[in-house]
Every structure is written in C-alpha cells, then in structure tokens.
C-alpha cells in the first residue's frame, strides 16, 4: 500500500463517517407526535402486516406517527434489557407473558386506561393486569393442541383423538402407532417448563404454591405428571440422541409422515399445510382435568415515555381495532385477542385443519404459566434441565423433581 492510497482511504472513511453520523441523527420538528414501537411479533414474515396496521392507525390519527423497529425474536430480550438499563426504551414495546410480572414490579410499565375493556377476551386482559389495573395489553394469542396424522390412525385402525380423550387414551394410541423398525413414532411432546406446568394442571396440581413463594410440584401427582412426559422418550417418542429437542424436530417428523401425534402450537398450521396426507387437531387430553397452554404476547407503554397518551392510543389500536382483526385473520398471523367470537368465525373455515373449533374449545380450560417477579428465567431453566436429566435416565424422576424443588426454592427465596 503506498502513501497516496492510504491517505485517500483514511480521508474517505472519515468523510463517510461524518456524513453517515449526521445523516442518521433524527431531526426534531414541531409537526405530528412521533411515537416509537419496538417489536418482535412481526419479525419473520409479518412485517408488511404490521405496516398495514400502522398505516390504518396513522390514517385515523393524522397527528401521530408510529416509528416501528423490528428485532429478531431470539435477541429481542438482550436489546430491550439494554434499552431499559440505559433509559432508551421506546414508547411502546412488546413483552412476553413470562416477563410481565418482573417489568410491572419494577415500574417500567405505565398504567393504562383501557377505553373498551369488553373488546378483549377477559382472561387475556386479566393476565396483564395487576390489582385491577392494566399495565399491558394482549396483542395476540395462540394455544397448544394435539396434532394428528389421520392416515396413520386409519392404517392402524384406531379412532381419531377427540376432546374427551385422557392421557390413558393418548398413551394406548401412541403405543399402538409406534413402529420403531419402520421409523414411525406415536407421539411427541417437548420435555420443558412450558409443557410441565401444563401437565401439572391437567393432573390437578400446580407449579407454585398459592402465594408463589415456593414450588408445589414435588407431590405424587406432580411426579406422575413428570413421568407422563419423561416416559414418552424412547418408548413412543424419539430420544434426545435421536434428535428430540432440536429446533422444529417434531414439525419435520410430522411433515415426513413419521409422527402420529404431536403437542404443539397452532402457529405450525402454515408449516404443515401442504403435507400429502390428512391431518387434524384435537383439544389436548388431560388426566383429571382438561387444561391447555395459551401463549400470548402483549405490548406495554413505557412509564418514561413523553407521550404516554398517544402511545396508549396506539397500544389499544394495535390490540383491539377492527383493522388489526382484519389483517390478522386475513393473513393468518396469530389470533386477535378479542372477545367477539362472531368476528373470529371466518377463522373456522380457513381450510386445514378441519377441526379449527378445537382452537377455541381449548380456551375453556386455560393453564397460564406460573410467574414470579424475580427469578422467572432461572426457574424455567432449572425445571427444564432437571426434567431432561430424568429423560436421559441420569436421574430418577423423583430425584430430578426433588433437586428442582430445592434449587428453585433457593432462587425464589432470593
């Protein structure tokens, strides 16, 4: 490299820096109010759908501009934590149910006055309110159902799963359907926190004590629930060594026609839509009672926002407006959190699966994840890790739960 080239290169880069540095400084003006919204919900294919909702909002509210930032789901938490620490969080931002309690407790969320609470599904609205005040609004929901490959059931001469099935029915069908020599597996259910708290509810147990200060799962019923999950591995479900537990494993196995039943969310409808065999869904079987997992995302308004009023308007629009309902139903982008089932009717005849009614029937028995204000993620990590220890056969289910109980209680005690 000779002198002139280096000089030019350095000068060019300095100029480039100055120019780009200036160009990206936001310009302040006295025009409409700009509110910022950081989200992950539109990431991975729904960016245009969100843009359509924003456009509808800006048309209704000409004096408000929504500045949208979309981040990858996997890294959203890191970015938003940094923002909260530095005080640069946007006016409106996405939160997951599991984080709600921690955010609410630390005062980062502004209390919201909901203009039309009746528009929301009550259970979802309640999930994001504390002492009767809403601190976030549900933006969508989806639930977990039992998917089944009807062709495999037909071939085995078995009845299809139905909403009155129990664990025993699922177990006997799974055993009959499993043909390891042919690479066919009867069942798949992740062995994780999100499944375990739900099967506890299905067995009439709960994860935490009533006051949330300690765990309550180390009981005969809790052990039975853990065994229900863990004992599937290697009998009717592939083991970890066979790939169980990796991303999209169950969906791919199902798409290949090698999995008869799987417990997963309605978000995979699109991914399995084009399979060359008939499939359908049913409400997840319970043991002593029916309980289904409901996942919901929500949006909160920053307590530090300079435009709480405009931000709340947008938050409410994004979660309950007709424009949002239309966009979501039209595009199949998760379900709107609204109470008016008539509006959702169009969802029922959108094609496979035929039994879309099961999506709504599942809501009759909801199991919400246990939440704590401090130590949520650690709690989830610990129970997941211990259950996998039991799945791999390195610990008995009893030992794993006893160990999880002791470790989680230590975290909850602070």
């Amino acid at each position, binding site marked *: 490299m000779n002198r002139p080239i280096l000089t030019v290169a350095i000068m060019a880069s300095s100029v480039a820096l100055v120019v780009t540095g200036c160009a990206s400084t936001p310009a302040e003006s006295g025009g409409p109010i700009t509110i910022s919204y950081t989200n992950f919900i539109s990431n991975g294919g729904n960016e245009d759908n969100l843009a359509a909702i924003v456009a509808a909002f800006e048309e209704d509210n000409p004096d408000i501009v929504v500045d949208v930032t979309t981040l990858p789901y996997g890294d959203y938490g890191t970015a938003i934590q940094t923002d*909260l*620490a530095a005080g640069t969080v946007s006016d409106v931002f996405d939160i997951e149910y599991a984080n709600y309690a*921690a955010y609410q407790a630390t005062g980062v969320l502004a209390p919201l006055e909901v203009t039309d609470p009746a528009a929301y599904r009550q259970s979802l609205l309640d999930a994001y309110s504390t002492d009767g005040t809403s601190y976030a609004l549900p933006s969508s929901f989806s639930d977990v159902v039992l998917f089944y490959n009807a062709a495999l059931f037909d071939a085995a001469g078995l009845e299809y799963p139905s909403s009155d099935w129990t664990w025993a029915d699922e177990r006997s069908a799974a055993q009959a359907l499993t043909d390891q020599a042919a690479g066919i597996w009867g069942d798949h259910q992740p062995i994780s926190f999100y499944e375990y708290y739900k099967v506890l509810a299905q067995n009439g147990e709960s994860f935490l004590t009533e006051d949330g200060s300690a765990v309550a799962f180390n009981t005969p019923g809790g052990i039975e629930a853990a065994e229900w999950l863990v004992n599937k591995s290697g009998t009717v479900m592939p083991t970890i060594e066979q*790939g169980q537990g990796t991303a999209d494993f169950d969906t791919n196995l199902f798409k290949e026609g090698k999995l008869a039943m799987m417990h997963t969310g309605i978000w995979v409808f699109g991914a399995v839509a084009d399979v060359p065999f008939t499939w359908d869904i049913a409400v997840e079987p319970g043991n002593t009672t029916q309980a289904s997992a409901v996942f919901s995302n929500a949006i909160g308004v920053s307590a530090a926002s300079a435009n709480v009023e405009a931000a709340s308007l947008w938050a409410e629009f994004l979660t309950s407006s007709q424009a949002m309902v239309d966009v979501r139903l039209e595009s199949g982008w998760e379900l709107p959190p609204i109470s008016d089932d008539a509006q959702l009717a169009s969802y029922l005849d959108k094609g496979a699966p035929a039994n879309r009614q099961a999506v709504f029937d599942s809501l009759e028995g909801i199991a919400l994840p246990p939440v704590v204000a401090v130590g949520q993620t650690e709690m989830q*990590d610990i129970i997941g*890790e211990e259950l996998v*220890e039991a799945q*791999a056969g390195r610990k008995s289910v009893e030992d794993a739960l006893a160990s999880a109980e002791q470790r989680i209680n230590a975290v909850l005690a602070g």
Partner: protein
Amino acid sequence: MTATVAADTRRMPRSRRTRTSPRLRYGLVVLTFLLPSAVPLALFTLGPMIAAAWISMTEWNLLTPMKFVGFDNYAQLLSDPRTSDVFLHTVYYIVGYLPLVYVGGLALALALNGALHGRSFLRGVYFLPVVTSWIVVALVWRWLLNPSTGIVNAALGAVGIEGPGWWSEPAWAMPSIILASAWKDLGFVMVILLAGLQSINPDMYDAARVDGAGRWRQLVSITLPLLSPSTFFVVVISLINGFQVFDQVYAMTGGGPGGATQVVVQQVYDLTFRYSRAGEASALSWMLFAVILAVTIAQVRVQKRWVNHA
C-alpha cells in the same frame, strides 16, 4: 529503560536543529504512534471495563437503581460451587483445544506453504470453516457425532470400538465441543502461521541443506525457532479467546447435558440478560479477567526463554 531512550535519541539525525529538546521530540514521536489506538481503546473498552468494575460492586437488575453492596457479589460467587464448575469446564476446554488446534494448524501451514499444486485453492477451503457460522458448524458436528446414527460412531464400530454418546453424554460433551472447535479454528491458526512462515528467509534453508540437515532437523532448528513469535501470538490469543469460549457451547450443547459444558461466559450472559443479575455478572467477568491476566503475564514472562526475537 531510560538508558535505551537516551541511546536511541543519540542516534537521531542532528541535521535539523529545533528548539525542542531531543527527549521531548522523542516523546512526541511515541505519542504520535500510540494515540490513534490509545484513545479509542481507553474510551470504548477501558472505560466500560471500569464501569463494569463499579457495577460488580452493586446489586442491579438493569431496571431499578443500583444498590451498592461492596464485595458481596464476589463473596457470593466464591461460595457458590457453580463458579468453580464453570471455571473448571472452561479450563478443560482450553487444555483439550489448544494442543489440538496448534499441532493441526502447524501441520496444515507447513503442508500448504510448500510448492503444492493448487495450494491457493486448498488454503481457501481450509479457511472455509473459519468463516462459516457456528449455527451451521454445530449442526453438522452434532450430526457427525450422533451417538446412534453418526458417521464417527459408525466408523468406530467398523473397527470394533463402541462409540461414546458424544454430546448427549456429560463425560463426552466437552470433548465433542473441543473437536468441533479445533476443526473450525484450524484455518485461523494456519493463516497466522503461514504469515510467519512467509517471513522466514529461504536462504536459511539453503544453508541448512548445504550442511546436510534433513527435513526434521530443518523443522526443529530453523522453522520452529523462527516461527516462535507467531507461535507465541497463537498461544496467547487462543488462551485469551479460549477463556471466553461461548458461541460453540451455546450452539452445540447449550451448556448441557446436565450443565456439564456450562462455561464462564455463558454464565455471564445468562446472569446479565436472562437472569437480570448484572452485578454478579460483572463480578464474574472481573474474576475471569484476573485469571486471564495472570495467565497472560505468566506467558509473557516465560516467552523470553523460548521466543526468538530478531
């Protein structure tokens, strides 16, 4: 040190006389060479490091104001058995990884330094894993090392050895990570050592050949000593990076099975962004810093005995 400076300034040309003293002028020269790097490093690395030291003495969940707790975080970490676990796992990784990657990288560099047909192409291919993302590499290695269906265990089975459970078994999970990491970083070590090999004067080999030295003799008495500055660099950098191993663990085992591969930086990441315990995370980072610094200082001390300086 002052004597050297004086000696050096005496050698400065005297043709241009200025009012400034030679010593001051020399100081200005040193500053001119150092400031371009010193300023950004001080502002954007040392500064945040000092801030992290302050955070390490607080209890902070990133949301509510920090609470000063003195050395409580350090005391708590020292009394937590998981702290020694994550350090031991990290050291285990380094001990397995470093010899493997150095010997492999050296062999590769020597092979591709010669007049080998298509060596540019081959160097490119060996560099591919260095630029391939860990997501892909982890996927492929998990597949190769699959306990029941993987190629590696199939090959072992063919010669009558029953293959281990690799990443699914606590005792074999770290060796799996080491293997994949060494494979991925071979190209990195190769590139550094190739640059070092290129700097060796070919005349040295001619002279050795005239003296009747064989290839092994040439390697031991010419190549390795003259390559020692590059070797020193590879060892220091690999240790600094090795203590901060994270990506491959995250991608291959996520710290499992049963926490058998949980390493220090993964714990730091979890504590900061997942468990909202920034104070403890900073304290753990400073403990890691102290360990790396001690190891590096030890190496700098020892290097005088084995690294060749022109």
